[in-house]
């Protein structure tokens, strides 16, 4: 048994979501009595690679092909397949993010490996290999058995607690053989978003809905986000009305998020919205309508007018932050 984790770096840096994958992989490795190999691309300095060791990755393979500077799912799948074969990986772990979702299915075909996407916990059994995943948009979970010899999973973000587990690392560079045709999709340009925290990365999200009446009223939402070090998100009508950018839309047809704390302000909680946020650890709802369905799903609720409650709450958060 060998475990391979795909650790994506962004301009040479790792994000917390990668440490979550490594922590998870190290826990599975312990169960199986094996070790964890992390694979990444590009040229990274040793200090950065050592960060992976802090969470339990013993071996780190860097694929150095310059062609991989541009993302191509096809090319990445070729490269990672070769690394997987080199270390005889039985279990390959990706994050359930745009990259993992693009590469993992291709690898699944290449290796005839069963793929469980959107896994939310450690395997409940290693033989047969059984993992829990979200189904029906979070309205239920399923235990999935992967029957093939090689297994692939994509782990949902924020489903496993990041913990340090320092080990000594060995590093290795690897040049993959990638056929020419693997770059048929040409990147033209990347348009960077506002530089704010992405909704899927945020540990706290302050979310506004149509109850806020207009984009001019988002000042107090952004203020709360700033006090809490949170990201901002919104409901579908708000992004459809262009009050907020589409990248902030969370829900069934927007982004699916699982922050530690989700504060919904002026959102009634339609089932499609809940499907995108019901993985949140704690949900707070502020709404004028006591019948709003969101109160049934929430942990804490305030029935009241956002325009009165939110400024008061911001003051209380500020006071709390000053004291803690």
């Amino acid at each position, binding site marked *: 048994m060998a475990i391979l984790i795909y650790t994506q770096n962004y301009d040479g840096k790792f994000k917390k979501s990668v440490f979550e994958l490594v922590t998870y992989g190290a826990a599975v490795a312990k169960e199986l009595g094996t070790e964890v190999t992390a694979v990444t691309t590009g040229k990274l300095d040793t200090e950065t690679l050592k960060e992976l060791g802090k969470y339990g990755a013993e071996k780190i393979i860097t694929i150095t092909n310059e062609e991989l500077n541009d993302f191509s799912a096809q090319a990445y799948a070729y490269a990672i397949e070769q690394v997987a074969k080199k270390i005889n990986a039985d279990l390959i772990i990706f994050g359930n993010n745009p990259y993992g979702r693009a590469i993992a*299915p291709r690898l699944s075909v290449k290796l005839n490996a069963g793929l469980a996407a959107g896994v939310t916990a450690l395997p409940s059994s290693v033989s047969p290999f059984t993992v829990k995943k979200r*189904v029906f948009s979070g309205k239920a979970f399923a235990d999935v058995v992967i029957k093939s010899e090689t297994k692939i999973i994509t782990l949902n973000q924020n489903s496993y607690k990041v913990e340090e587990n320092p080990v000594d690392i060995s590093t290795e560079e690897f040049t993959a053989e990638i056929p020419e045709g693997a770059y048929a999709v040409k990147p033209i340009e990347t*348009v960077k978003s506002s530089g704010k925290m992405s909704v899927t990365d945020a540990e706290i999200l302050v979310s506004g809905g149509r109850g806020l009446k207009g984009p001019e009223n988002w000042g107090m939402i952004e203020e709360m986000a700033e006090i809490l070090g949170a990201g901002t998100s919104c409901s579908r009508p708000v992004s459809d009305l262009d009050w907020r950018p589409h990248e902030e839309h969370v829900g069934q047809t927007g982004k699916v998020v699982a922050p530690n704390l989700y504060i919904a302000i002026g959102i009634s909680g339609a089932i499609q919205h809940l499907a995108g946020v019901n993985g949140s650890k704690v949900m707070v709802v502020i709404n004028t309508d006591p019948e709003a369905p969101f109160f049934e799903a929430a942990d804490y609720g305030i029935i009241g007018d956002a325009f009165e409650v939110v400024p008061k709450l911001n003051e209380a958060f500020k006071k709390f932050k000053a004291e803690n």
Partner: protein
Amino acid sequence: MKALICIGHVPDTTSKIKFTDNDTKFDTADIKYIIGPYEELALTRLLDLRDAGTDMHITTVTVGTQETEPTIRKALAMGADDAVRVNAEASDNLFIAKQIAEVFKNGDYDIIITGKESIDYNGGQLEGMIAEFLNLPSVSGASKFDIEGDKILLEQEIEGGTLKLEASFPFVVSAGKGFCPEPEPRIPNMRGIMTARKKPLQVVEPVDQDAVTEIIKYHLPEPKPACKMIDPDNVEELVRLLHEEAKVI
């Protein structure tokens, strides 16, 4: 151009989800089925492009038993030209992808379009698997989709921004939010429904592919304790609870 679009037969998004047989089977009683929302978005986009003058033949493909035919007929009533149904229970994703790849090989299609993810088993794996079976390039979760001559112009939301891409045929893409910029629901009219009955729906038998995953049990989420209500005049209490009880700030 010939487009092959995957149409999923999934429970309506407002369905109450229940299980039977000791929580090993999805309870289909009282469930209303719909076209997967992302697939409907993709079909709407294709129909919009065709209405705007792109020459296009649209074939739908569904892996499923005869029960899926009303959903397939709905896609035909919306405006797809014909349909293929692979006569098999849709279960393992590798199995489904292999069937769709086979349908593609047996026709002279230029592009395969899927939804970003199915809302039932939330796989989100099909487009990558189909593309790999066919050794074709692909983009997952495109947030914009245009055809200009023999070029496909796409956008994809990535972490921290938007990536603009260009591809050529043959190609595989899955549709995410934004794929159809102003989706006007295409509600089939009587004429559409009547013509859909006469449109060709070809049934083919599946090719061999071992299922490598299996769902052995379902769970419903633990019921949440009732929401704690806080007096709007005492918001400090909420801050205290978030800190001391929920420990999230």
